[in-house]
Protein backbone atom coordinates (compact mmCIF):
# COMPACT_ATOMS: atom_id res chain seq x y z
CA UNK A 1 0.00 0.00 0.00
CA UNK A 2 2.63 2.50 1.07
CA UNK A 3 4.84 1.21 -1.69
CA UNK A 4 2.20 1.84 -4.33
CA UNK A 5 1.77 5.39 -3.13
CA UNK A 6 5.49 5.94 -3.34
CA UNK A 7 5.77 4.61 -6.85
CA UNK A 8 2.85 6.75 -7.90
CA UNK A 9 4.48 9.76 -6.31
CA UNK A 10 7.73 9.13 -8.16
CA UNK A 11 5.92 8.88 -11.48
CA UNK A 12 3.89 12.04 -10.94
CA UNK A 13 6.76 14.15 -9.64
CA UNK A 14 9.05 12.90 -12.38
CA UNK A 15 6.60 13.89 -15.09
CA UNK A 16 5.97 17.25 -13.42
CA UNK A 17 9.64 18.04 -12.92
CA UNK A 18 10.62 17.10 -16.47
CA UNK A 19 7.78 19.18 -17.87
CA UNK A 20 8.72 22.24 -15.82
CA UNK A 21 12.41 21.76 -16.54
CA UNK A 22 11.80 21.43 -20.26
CA UNK A 23 9.66 24.59 -20.34
CA UNK A 24 12.32 26.60 -18.53
CA UNK A 25 15.11 25.29 -20.71
CA UNK A 26 13.11 25.63 -23.93
CA UNK A 27 14.21 29.17 -24.97
CA UNK A 28 17.83 28.04 -24.90
CA UNK A 29 17.04 24.87 -26.84
CA UNK A 30 15.06 26.86 -29.37
CA UNK A 31 17.98 29.23 -29.84
CA UNK A 32 20.42 26.38 -30.40
CA UNK A 33 18.07 24.83 -32.96
CA UNK A 34 17.68 28.17 -34.75
CA UNK A 35 21.44 28.47 -35.01
CA UNK A 36 21.44 25.40 -37.28
CA UNK A 37 18.70 26.67 -39.58
CA UNK A 38 18.95 28.86 -42.64
CA UNK A 39 17.82 32.46 -42.12
CA UNK A 40 14.63 31.71 -44.05
CA UNK A 41 13.80 28.70 -41.95
CA UNK A 42 14.57 30.47 -38.69
CA UNK A 43 11.96 33.03 -39.64
CA UNK A 44 9.43 30.59 -41.10
CA UNK A 45 5.84 30.12 -39.91
CA UNK A 46 4.93 27.42 -39.05
CA UNK A 47 8.29 26.81 -37.42
CA UNK A 48 10.11 23.56 -37.99
CA UNK A 49 11.27 21.82 -34.85
CA UNK A 50 13.66 19.12 -35.87
CA UNK A 51 12.98 18.34 -39.50
CA UNK A 52 14.76 21.11 -41.30
CA UNK A 53 17.85 21.31 -43.40
CA UNK A 54 20.56 21.36 -40.71
CA UNK A 55 23.39 23.71 -41.59
CA UNK A 56 26.46 25.12 -39.91
CA UNK A 57 26.81 28.06 -42.28
CA UNK A 58 25.74 30.54 -39.57
CA UNK A 59 28.71 29.71 -37.43
CA UNK A 60 31.06 30.49 -40.28
CA UNK A 61 29.09 33.64 -41.14
CA UNK A 62 29.38 34.98 -37.59
CA UNK A 63 33.14 35.07 -37.84
CA UNK A 64 33.00 36.72 -41.28
CA UNK A 65 30.41 39.37 -40.46
CA UNK A 66 32.30 40.66 -37.50
CA UNK A 67 35.44 39.25 -36.03
CA UNK A 68 33.81 36.91 -33.50
CA UNK A 69 37.04 35.51 -32.11
CA UNK A 70 38.29 38.98 -31.36
CA UNK A 71 35.30 39.59 -29.08
CA UNK A 72 35.52 36.13 -27.55
CA UNK A 73 39.15 36.87 -26.78
CA UNK A 74 38.10 40.16 -25.16
CA UNK A 75 35.65 38.26 -22.97
CA UNK A 76 38.35 35.82 -21.93
CA UNK A 77 40.84 38.58 -21.16
CA UNK A 78 38.34 40.76 -19.29
CA UNK A 79 36.64 37.99 -17.30
CA UNK A 80 39.84 36.06 -16.68
CA UNK A 81 41.99 39.08 -15.92
CA UNK A 82 39.55 40.69 -13.52
CA UNK A 83 38.98 37.41 -11.69
CA UNK A 84 42.66 36.61 -11.28
CA UNK A 85 43.55 40.09 -10.06
CA UNK A 86 40.61 40.04 -7.66
CA UNK A 87 41.80 36.68 -6.30
CA UNK A 88 45.33 37.97 -5.79
CA UNK A 89 44.03 40.89 -3.74
CA UNK A 90 41.38 38.87 -1.93
CA UNK A 91 43.37 35.82 -0.83
CA UNK A 92 45.60 37.67 1.65
CA UNK A 93 42.67 39.72 2.92
CA UNK A 94 40.40 36.72 3.44
CA UNK A 95 43.23 34.72 4.97
CA UNK A 96 43.92 37.46 7.44
CA UNK A 97 40.28 37.88 8.46
CA UNK A 98 39.66 34.16 8.78
CA UNK A 99 42.77 33.28 10.76
CA UNK A 100 43.65 36.43 12.67
CA UNK A 101 40.29 38.04 13.29
CA UNK A 102 40.09 41.17 15.39
CA UNK A 103 37.16 42.93 16.96
CA UNK A 104 36.63 44.88 13.78
CA UNK A 105 36.67 41.95 11.36
CA UNK A 106 32.91 41.58 11.30
CA UNK A 107 32.41 45.27 10.63
CA UNK A 108 34.97 45.21 7.83
CA UNK A 109 33.24 42.23 6.23
CA UNK A 110 29.84 43.87 6.38
CA UNK A 111 31.26 47.11 5.06
CA UNK A 112 32.76 45.24 2.11
CA UNK A 113 29.40 43.65 1.47
CA UNK A 114 27.76 47.05 1.49
CA UNK A 115 30.07 48.34 -1.25
CA UNK A 116 28.63 45.64 -3.47
CA UNK A 117 25.17 47.06 -2.91
CA UNK A 118 26.02 50.39 -4.45
CA UNK A 119 24.07 50.46 -7.72
CA UNK A 120 26.57 50.82 -10.56
CA UNK A 121 24.34 53.41 -12.18
CA UNK A 122 24.94 55.65 -9.16
CA UNK A 123 28.57 56.04 -10.16
CA UNK A 124 28.17 55.72 -13.92
CA UNK A 125 28.77 59.42 -14.55
CA UNK A 126 32.07 59.83 -12.70
CA UNK A 127 33.44 56.50 -13.92
CA UNK A 128 32.55 57.40 -17.49
CA UNK A 129 34.20 60.80 -17.18
CA UNK A 130 37.30 59.37 -15.50
CA UNK A 131 37.59 56.79 -18.28
CA UNK A 132 37.14 59.54 -20.87
CA UNK A 133 39.80 61.71 -19.29
CA UNK A 134 42.37 58.93 -19.10
CA UNK A 135 41.54 57.45 -22.49
CA UNK A 136 40.23 54.24 -20.96
CA UNK A 137 36.92 54.15 -22.84
CA UNK A 138 36.74 51.05 -25.02
CA UNK A 139 39.92 49.64 -23.49
CA UNK A 140 40.29 46.16 -22.07
CA UNK A 141 42.43 47.29 -19.18
CA UNK A 142 39.72 49.68 -18.02
CA UNK A 143 37.08 46.96 -18.00
CA UNK A 144 39.40 44.52 -16.23
CA UNK A 145 39.89 47.14 -13.55
CA UNK A 146 36.19 47.96 -13.09
CA UNK A 147 34.97 44.36 -13.06
CA UNK A 148 37.74 43.41 -10.66
CA UNK A 149 36.68 46.06 -8.17
CA UNK A 150 33.01 45.28 -8.69
CA UNK A 151 33.47 41.61 -7.85
CA UNK A 152 36.14 41.99 -5.17
CA UNK A 153 33.65 42.00 -2.25
CA UNK A 154 32.08 38.73 -3.43
CA UNK A 155 35.49 37.14 -3.91
CA UNK A 156 36.63 38.13 -0.43
CA UNK A 157 33.39 36.93 1.10
CA UNK A 158 33.44 33.56 -0.59
CA UNK A 159 37.06 32.94 0.29
CA UNK A 160 36.42 34.03 3.85
CA UNK A 161 33.58 31.53 4.31
CA UNK A 162 35.77 28.74 2.88
CA UNK A 163 38.86 29.65 4.88
CA UNK A 164 36.84 29.78 8.06
CA UNK A 165 35.97 26.13 7.65
CA UNK A 166 39.61 25.05 7.71
CA UNK A 167 40.17 23.71 11.23
CA UNK A 168 42.51 25.88 13.22
CA UNK A 169 43.93 22.97 15.14
CA UNK A 170 45.83 21.94 12.06
CA UNK A 171 47.52 25.31 11.92
CA UNK A 172 48.45 25.09 15.54
CA UNK A 173 49.88 21.65 15.07
CA UNK A 174 51.96 22.96 12.19
CA UNK A 175 53.13 25.85 14.29
CA UNK A 176 54.08 23.53 17.12
CA UNK A 177 56.20 21.62 14.68
CA UNK A 178 58.03 24.85 14.01
CA UNK A 179 56.48 25.81 10.69
CA UNK A 180 56.90 29.44 9.76
CA UNK A 181 53.96 31.41 8.44
CA UNK A 182 55.30 31.11 4.92
CA UNK A 183 55.58 27.33 5.15
CA UNK A 184 52.22 27.13 6.84
CA UNK A 185 50.71 28.99 3.91
CA UNK A 186 52.32 26.84 1.23
CA UNK A 187 52.17 23.36 2.75
CA UNK A 188 49.16 23.40 5.04
CA UNK A 189 46.70 26.06 4.04
CA UNK A 190 46.95 26.04 0.28
CA UNK A 191 46.12 22.37 -0.26
CA UNK A 192 43.13 22.68 2.06
CA UNK A 193 41.95 25.87 0.44
CA UNK A 194 42.11 24.71 -3.17
CA UNK A 195 38.48 23.53 -3.46
CA UNK A 196 37.25 26.86 -2.11
CA UNK A 197 39.61 28.78 -4.37
CA UNK A 198 38.45 26.82 -7.38
CA UNK A 199 34.78 27.49 -6.79
CA UNK A 200 35.41 31.16 -6.11
CA UNK A 201 37.35 31.39 -9.35
CA UNK A 202 34.57 29.64 -11.26
CA UNK A 203 31.71 31.72 -9.91
CA UNK A 204 33.52 34.96 -10.57
CA UNK A 205 34.47 33.99 -14.07
CA UNK A 206 30.77 33.44 -14.71
CA UNK A 207 29.73 36.74 -13.15
CA UNK A 208 32.39 38.69 -15.03
CA UNK A 209 31.65 36.93 -18.34
CA UNK A 210 27.98 37.86 -18.13
CA UNK A 211 28.42 41.36 -16.70
CA UNK A 212 26.38 43.66 -18.91
CA UNK A 213 26.25 47.10 -17.33
CA UNK A 214 29.82 48.31 -17.43
CA UNK A 215 30.68 46.39 -20.56
CA UNK A 216 27.76 47.93 -22.47
CA UNK A 217 28.51 51.44 -21.25
CA UNK A 218 32.29 51.48 -21.42
CA UNK A 219 33.07 49.49 -24.56
CA UNK A 220 31.96 49.93 -28.14
CA UNK A 221 34.08 48.00 -30.60
CA UNK A 222 37.75 47.33 -29.97
CA UNK A 223 37.43 46.18 -26.36
CA UNK A 224 33.86 44.92 -26.72
CA UNK A 225 33.39 41.54 -25.05
CA UNK A 226 30.64 39.16 -26.14
CA UNK A 227 27.91 40.91 -24.13
CA UNK A 228 28.42 44.12 -26.12
CA UNK A 229 28.99 42.21 -29.35
CA UNK A 230 25.65 40.37 -29.02
CA UNK A 231 23.90 43.65 -28.19
CA UNK A 232 24.92 44.91 -31.64
CA UNK A 233 22.39 42.43 -33.04
CA UNK A 234 19.58 44.49 -31.52
CA UNK A 235 19.74 47.08 -34.28
CA UNK A 236 17.12 46.51 -36.99
CA UNK A 237 19.72 46.04 -39.70
CA UNK A 238 21.11 43.16 -37.70
CA UNK A 239 17.92 41.14 -37.75
CA UNK A 240 19.45 37.82 -38.66
CA UNK A 241 17.93 35.29 -36.31
CA UNK A 242 20.00 32.31 -37.29
CA UNK A 243 23.25 34.26 -37.06
CA UNK A 244 22.16 35.87 -33.80
CA UNK A 245 21.44 32.39 -32.46
CA UNK A 246 24.77 31.03 -33.61
CA UNK A 247 26.69 33.91 -32.04
CA UNK A 248 24.65 33.56 -28.84
CA UNK A 249 25.15 29.81 -28.64
CA UNK A 250 28.90 30.25 -28.91
CA UNK A 251 28.82 33.02 -26.33
CA UNK A 252 26.96 31.09 -23.65
CA UNK A 253 28.23 27.54 -24.25
CA UNK A 254 31.46 27.72 -22.25
CA UNK A 255 29.83 29.49 -19.33
CA UNK A 256 26.89 27.07 -19.28
CA UNK A 257 29.34 24.21 -18.87
CA UNK A 258 31.28 25.98 -16.11
CA UNK A 259 28.03 27.01 -14.47
CA UNK A 260 26.67 23.51 -14.35
CA UNK A 261 29.79 22.44 -12.51
CA UNK A 262 29.51 25.18 -9.94
CA UNK A 263 25.82 25.25 -9.06
CA UNK A 264 26.37 24.27 -5.43
CA UNK A 265 28.90 27.05 -4.85
CA UNK A 266 26.66 29.47 -6.65
CA UNK A 267 24.13 29.48 -3.82
CA UNK A 268 26.77 30.01 -1.23
CA UNK A 269 28.61 32.69 -3.12
CA UNK A 270 25.61 34.73 -4.11
CA UNK A 271 23.98 34.67 -0.70
CA UNK A 272 27.21 35.61 1.08
CA UNK A 273 27.01 32.40 3.08
CA UNK A 274 23.50 33.14 4.33
CA UNK A 275 22.20 29.96 2.67
CA UNK A 276 24.45 26.93 2.42
Amino acid sequence: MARMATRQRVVISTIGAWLFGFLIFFPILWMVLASFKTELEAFAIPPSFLFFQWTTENYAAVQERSDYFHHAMNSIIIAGGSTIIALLIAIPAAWSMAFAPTKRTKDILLWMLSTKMMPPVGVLVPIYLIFKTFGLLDSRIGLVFILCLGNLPIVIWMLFTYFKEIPRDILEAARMDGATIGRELVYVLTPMAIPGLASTLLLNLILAWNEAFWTLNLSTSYAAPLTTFIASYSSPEGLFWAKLSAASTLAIAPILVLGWFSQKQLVRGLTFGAVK
Partner: protein
Amino acid sequence: MAAFFFPAEEKPVATRQTQFLARSLLTPAVGLLFIWMIVPLALTIYFSTLHYSLLDPGSEEFIGLENFRYFLTDPAFLASLQNTLVLVGSVLALTILLGIPLALLLDQPVIGRNFVRLMVIAPFFVMPTVSALVWKNLLMHPVSGLFAWLAKLVGLTPVDWFNDVPLFSVILIVAWQWLPFATLILLTALQSLDEEQKEAAEMDGASAVSTFIYITLPHLARPITVVILIETIFLLTVFAEIYVTTGGGPGLSTTNIAFLIYAQALIQFDVGSASAGGLVAVVIANIVAFFLVRIVGRNLEA
Protein backbone atom coordinates in the same frame (compact mmCIF):
# COMPACT_ATOMS: atom_id res chain seq x y z
CA MET B 1 47.83 25.22 30.46
CA ALA B 2 46.93 27.54 27.67
CA ALA B 3 43.55 25.90 27.40
CA PHE B 4 42.97 26.71 31.02
CA PHE B 5 43.69 30.40 30.71
CA PHE B 6 41.97 30.82 27.38
CA PRO B 7 38.56 29.26 26.89
CA ALA B 8 38.35 27.14 23.76
CA GLU B 9 36.94 29.85 21.55
CA GLU B 10 39.61 32.46 22.16
CA LYS B 11 42.87 30.67 21.71
CA PRO B 12 45.62 33.22 21.18
CA VAL B 13 46.36 32.03 17.68
CA ALA B 14 47.36 35.50 16.64
CA THR B 15 50.57 36.68 18.20
CA ARG B 16 51.56 40.30 17.82
CA GLN B 17 53.69 39.39 14.86
CA THR B 18 50.92 37.59 13.01
CA GLN B 19 48.54 40.39 13.86
CA PHE B 20 50.81 42.88 12.16
CA LEU B 21 51.10 40.57 9.18
CA ALA B 22 47.36 40.08 9.11
CA ARG B 23 46.75 43.79 9.06
CA SER B 24 49.18 44.41 6.25
CA LEU B 25 47.57 41.62 4.22
CA LEU B 26 44.16 43.16 4.69
CA THR B 27 45.16 46.71 3.82
CA PRO B 28 45.33 46.50 0.00
CA ALA B 29 41.81 45.09 -0.28
CA VAL B 30 40.33 47.55 2.20
CA GLY B 31 42.17 50.47 0.63
CA LEU B 32 41.08 49.63 -2.91
CA LEU B 33 37.47 49.10 -1.93
CA PHE B 34 37.53 52.31 0.03
CA ILE B 35 38.79 54.30 -2.96
CA TRP B 36 36.35 52.48 -5.23
CA MET B 37 33.51 53.48 -2.97
CA ILE B 38 34.50 56.99 -1.97
CA VAL B 39 36.01 58.61 -5.06
CA PRO B 40 33.18 58.00 -7.56
CA LEU B 41 30.56 58.68 -4.92
CA ALA B 42 32.20 61.98 -3.94
CA LEU B 43 32.42 62.94 -7.60
CA THR B 44 28.76 62.07 -8.11
CA ILE B 45 27.82 64.29 -5.19
CA TYR B 46 30.03 67.08 -6.54
CA PHE B 47 28.65 66.86 -10.09
CA SER B 48 25.10 66.77 -8.78
CA THR B 49 25.49 70.34 -7.56
CA LEU B 50 26.77 71.65 -10.89
CA HIS B 51 25.20 72.78 -14.07
CA TYR B 52 27.33 70.51 -16.24
CA SER B 53 26.56 69.46 -19.77
CA LEU B 54 29.05 67.63 -21.96
CA LEU B 55 27.51 69.35 -24.98
CA ASP B 56 28.38 72.73 -23.54
CA PRO B 57 31.84 72.35 -22.00
CA GLY B 58 33.26 75.14 -19.90
CA SER B 59 29.86 76.28 -18.70
CA GLU B 60 30.02 74.44 -15.37
CA GLU B 61 28.69 76.42 -12.46
CA PHE B 62 27.45 75.69 -8.97
CA ILE B 63 23.67 75.56 -8.81
CA GLY B 64 23.06 73.99 -5.42
CA LEU B 65 20.16 71.56 -5.30
CA GLU B 66 18.70 72.67 -8.61
CA ASN B 67 19.53 69.32 -10.29
CA PHE B 68 17.66 67.43 -7.59
CA ARG B 69 14.67 69.70 -7.99
CA TYR B 70 14.82 69.14 -11.74
CA PHE B 71 15.30 65.37 -11.50
CA LEU B 72 12.71 64.74 -8.80
CA THR B 73 9.99 66.90 -10.39
CA ASP B 74 10.62 65.60 -13.90
CA PRO B 75 7.55 63.53 -14.88
CA ALA B 76 10.04 61.00 -16.26
CA PHE B 77 11.31 60.39 -12.73
CA LEU B 78 7.90 59.43 -11.33
CA ALA B 79 7.19 57.26 -14.36
CA SER B 80 10.52 55.50 -14.08
CA LEU B 81 10.21 55.09 -10.32
CA GLN B 82 6.85 53.46 -10.85
CA ASN B 83 8.26 51.21 -13.59
CA THR B 84 11.16 50.25 -11.33
CA LEU B 85 8.82 49.28 -8.50
CA VAL B 86 6.48 47.35 -10.78
CA LEU B 87 9.41 45.55 -12.38
CA VAL B 88 11.05 44.61 -9.07
CA GLY B 89 7.75 43.63 -7.43
CA SER B 90 6.48 41.53 -10.33
CA VAL B 91 9.74 39.68 -10.87
CA LEU B 92 10.00 38.96 -7.14
CA ALA B 93 6.45 37.67 -7.03
CA LEU B 94 6.87 35.52 -10.14
CA THR B 95 10.19 34.00 -9.14
CA ILE B 96 9.11 33.18 -5.60
CA LEU B 97 5.60 31.96 -6.38
CA LEU B 98 6.95 29.72 -9.15
CA GLY B 99 10.18 28.95 -7.34
CA ILE B 100 8.53 27.39 -4.28
CA PRO B 101 6.51 24.74 -6.13
CA LEU B 102 9.43 24.09 -8.44
CA ALA B 103 11.83 23.60 -5.53
CA LEU B 104 9.32 21.33 -3.78
CA LEU B 105 8.99 19.31 -6.96
CA LEU B 106 12.75 18.96 -7.38
CA ASP B 107 13.02 17.91 -3.74
CA GLN B 108 10.83 14.89 -4.51
CA PRO B 109 12.26 11.59 -5.68
CA VAL B 110 12.46 12.41 -9.38
CA ILE B 111 14.02 10.09 -11.93
CA GLY B 112 16.89 11.93 -13.60
CA ARG B 113 16.80 14.71 -11.04
CA ASN B 114 20.30 15.94 -11.79
CA PHE B 115 19.46 16.44 -15.42
CA VAL B 116 16.27 18.33 -14.59
CA ARG B 117 18.27 20.51 -12.23
CA LEU B 118 20.65 21.36 -15.04
CA MET B 119 17.77 22.41 -17.28
CA VAL B 120 16.21 24.55 -14.56
CA ILE B 121 19.43 26.34 -13.60
CA ALA B 122 20.57 27.04 -17.17
CA PRO B 123 18.88 30.43 -17.79
CA PHE B 124 20.87 31.96 -14.94
CA PHE B 125 24.10 31.42 -16.86
CA VAL B 126 22.89 33.04 -20.06
CA MET B 127 24.24 36.56 -20.49
CA PRO B 128 21.49 39.20 -20.25
CA THR B 129 21.94 40.51 -23.78
CA VAL B 130 21.49 37.01 -25.20
CA SER B 131 18.37 36.19 -23.17
CA ALA B 132 16.76 39.49 -24.03
CA LEU B 133 17.41 39.21 -27.76
CA VAL B 134 16.39 35.58 -28.00
CA TRP B 135 13.11 36.29 -26.22
CA LYS B 136 12.46 39.45 -28.18
CA ASN B 137 13.03 37.92 -31.60
CA LEU B 138 12.66 34.16 -31.59
CA LEU B 139 9.81 33.98 -29.08
CA MET B 140 8.00 37.31 -28.86
CA HIS B 141 8.18 38.63 -32.42
CA PRO B 142 4.57 39.56 -33.35
CA VAL B 143 4.67 37.78 -36.72
CA SER B 144 7.37 35.16 -36.78
CA GLY B 145 7.85 34.49 -33.09
CA LEU B 146 6.98 31.16 -31.57
CA PHE B 147 4.38 32.70 -29.25
CA ALA B 148 2.57 34.27 -32.21
CA TRP B 149 2.46 30.89 -33.92
CA LEU B 150 1.15 29.20 -30.75
CA ALA B 151 -1.52 31.87 -30.35
CA LYS B 152 -2.73 31.38 -33.91
CA LEU B 153 -2.69 27.63 -33.40
CA VAL B 154 -5.31 27.92 -30.65
CA GLY B 155 -7.24 30.61 -32.50
CA LEU B 156 -6.09 33.71 -30.62
CA THR B 157 -4.79 36.97 -32.02
CA PRO B 158 -1.01 37.13 -31.54
CA VAL B 159 0.16 39.72 -29.01
CA ASP B 160 2.50 42.43 -30.21
CA TRP B 161 4.50 42.04 -27.02
CA PHE B 162 6.80 45.03 -27.01
CA ASN B 163 4.13 47.43 -28.26
CA ASP B 164 1.05 46.27 -26.36
CA VAL B 165 2.57 45.16 -23.05
CA PRO B 166 6.19 46.41 -23.13
CA LEU B 167 6.84 46.43 -19.40
CA PHE B 168 5.25 43.02 -18.92
CA SER B 169 7.47 41.66 -21.70
CA VAL B 170 10.59 42.90 -19.93
CA ILE B 171 9.25 41.45 -16.66
CA LEU B 172 8.80 38.04 -18.30
CA ILE B 173 12.37 38.01 -19.59
CA VAL B 174 13.89 39.10 -16.30
CA ALA B 175 11.74 36.65 -14.32
CA TRP B 176 12.94 33.83 -16.58
CA GLN B 177 16.52 34.78 -15.76
CA TRP B 178 15.97 34.91 -12.01
CA LEU B 179 13.63 31.96 -11.51
CA PRO B 180 16.58 29.53 -11.42
CA PHE B 181 18.27 31.58 -8.70
CA ALA B 182 15.19 31.54 -6.46
CA THR B 183 14.56 27.86 -7.13
CA LEU B 184 18.13 26.84 -6.44
CA ILE B 185 18.30 28.69 -3.14
CA LEU B 186 14.93 27.37 -1.97
CA LEU B 187 15.92 23.87 -3.02
CA THR B 188 19.19 24.11 -1.11
CA ALA B 189 17.23 25.18 1.96
CA LEU B 190 14.68 22.39 1.53
CA GLN B 191 17.41 19.80 1.36
CA SER B 192 18.69 20.90 4.74
CA LEU B 193 15.25 20.41 6.26
CA ASP B 194 15.26 17.53 8.66
CA GLU B 195 13.65 14.49 7.00
CA GLU B 196 12.73 13.05 10.39
CA GLN B 197 10.73 16.09 11.29
CA LYS B 198 8.63 15.68 8.17
CA GLU B 199 8.25 11.96 8.69
CA ALA B 200 7.15 12.45 12.28
CA ALA B 201 4.51 14.89 11.11
CA GLU B 202 3.32 12.39 8.51
CA MET B 203 3.17 9.64 11.14
CA ASP B 204 1.02 11.86 13.30
CA GLY B 205 -1.38 11.98 10.41
CA ALA B 206 -0.61 15.49 9.24
CA SER B 207 -1.77 16.08 5.70
CA ALA B 208 0.69 17.16 3.05
CA VAL B 209 -0.84 20.62 3.12
CA SER B 210 -0.46 21.13 6.85
CA THR B 211 3.07 19.69 6.78
CA PHE B 212 3.84 22.32 4.17
CA ILE B 213 2.23 25.17 6.11
CA TYR B 214 3.53 24.34 9.58
CA ILE B 215 6.92 22.81 8.86
CA THR B 216 8.21 23.55 5.37
CA LEU B 217 7.07 27.14 4.98
CA PRO B 218 8.51 28.41 8.31
CA HIS B 219 11.77 26.71 7.38
CA LEU B 220 11.74 28.60 4.07
CA ALA B 221 11.10 32.00 5.64
CA ARG B 222 14.77 32.87 5.88
CA PRO B 223 15.87 31.74 2.42
CA ILE B 224 12.86 33.56 0.97
CA THR B 225 13.96 36.75 2.71
CA VAL B 226 17.46 36.27 1.35
CA VAL B 227 16.10 35.73 -2.17
CA ILE B 228 13.97 38.87 -1.91
CA LEU B 229 16.83 41.05 -0.72
CA ILE B 230 19.46 39.83 -3.16
CA GLU B 231 17.14 39.85 -6.14
CA THR B 232 15.98 43.35 -5.22
CA ILE B 233 19.53 44.66 -5.30
CA PHE B 234 20.08 43.32 -8.80
CA LEU B 235 16.57 44.07 -10.07
CA LEU B 236 16.72 47.73 -9.04
CA THR B 237 19.37 48.22 -11.70
CA VAL B 238 18.12 46.03 -14.54
CA PHE B 239 19.73 47.60 -17.57
CA ALA B 240 20.91 45.34 -20.40
CA GLU B 241 17.49 43.75 -20.95
CA ILE B 242 15.92 47.18 -21.50
CA TYR B 243 18.87 48.48 -23.50
CA VAL B 244 18.65 45.77 -26.17
CA THR B 245 14.87 45.31 -26.35
CA THR B 246 12.92 48.54 -25.96
CA GLY B 247 15.47 51.28 -25.32
CA GLY B 248 13.15 52.46 -22.56
CA GLY B 249 10.11 52.88 -24.81
CA PRO B 250 7.63 53.14 -26.25
CA GLY B 251 7.57 56.59 -24.67
CA LEU B 252 8.71 56.03 -21.11
CA SER B 253 6.83 52.78 -20.58
CA THR B 254 9.90 50.62 -19.90
CA THR B 255 12.27 53.27 -18.57
CA ASN B 256 13.40 52.37 -15.07
CA ILE B 257 15.58 54.54 -12.84
CA ALA B 258 18.79 52.95 -14.07
CA PHE B 259 17.87 53.47 -17.70
CA LEU B 260 16.70 57.04 -17.08
CA ILE B 261 20.04 57.95 -15.53
CA TYR B 262 21.90 56.28 -18.38
CA ALA B 263 19.82 58.21 -20.90
CA GLN B 264 20.44 61.53 -19.17
CA ALA B 265 24.15 60.91 -18.86
CA LEU B 266 25.13 59.25 -22.12
CA ILE B 267 22.36 60.29 -24.53
CA GLN B 268 21.53 63.82 -23.34
CA PHE B 269 24.98 64.37 -21.80
CA ASP B 270 23.46 66.14 -18.81
CA VAL B 271 26.05 65.21 -16.19
CA GLY B 272 24.55 67.27 -13.37
CA SER B 273 21.06 65.89 -13.56
CA ALA B 274 22.26 62.31 -14.13
CA SER B 275 24.44 62.59 -11.04
CA ALA B 276 21.50 63.76 -8.96
CA GLY B 277 19.56 60.76 -10.27
CA GLY B 278 22.47 58.49 -9.44
CA LEU B 279 22.36 59.63 -5.83
CA VAL B 280 18.64 58.95 -5.68
CA ALA B 281 19.37 55.41 -6.90
CA VAL B 282 22.07 55.00 -4.25
CA VAL B 283 19.62 56.05 -1.52
CA ILE B 284 16.97 53.58 -2.72
CA ALA B 285 19.49 50.75 -2.87
CA ASN B 286 20.79 51.58 0.58
CA ILE B 287 17.38 51.15 2.12
CA VAL B 288 17.33 47.57 0.81
CA ALA B 289 20.97 46.99 1.67
CA PHE B 290 20.34 47.98 5.26
CA PHE B 291 18.07 45.00 5.79
CA LEU B 292 20.25 42.54 3.90
CA VAL B 293 23.37 43.49 5.84
CA ARG B 294 21.48 42.95 9.07
CA ILE B 295 20.39 39.46 8.10
CA VAL B 296 23.82 38.43 6.89
CA GLY B 297 25.39 39.98 9.96
CA ARG B 298 23.17 37.98 12.27
CA ASN B 299 24.24 34.87 10.43
CA LEU B 300 27.89 35.77 10.90
CA GLU B 301 27.56 35.50 14.66
CA ALA B 302 25.92 32.09 14.58
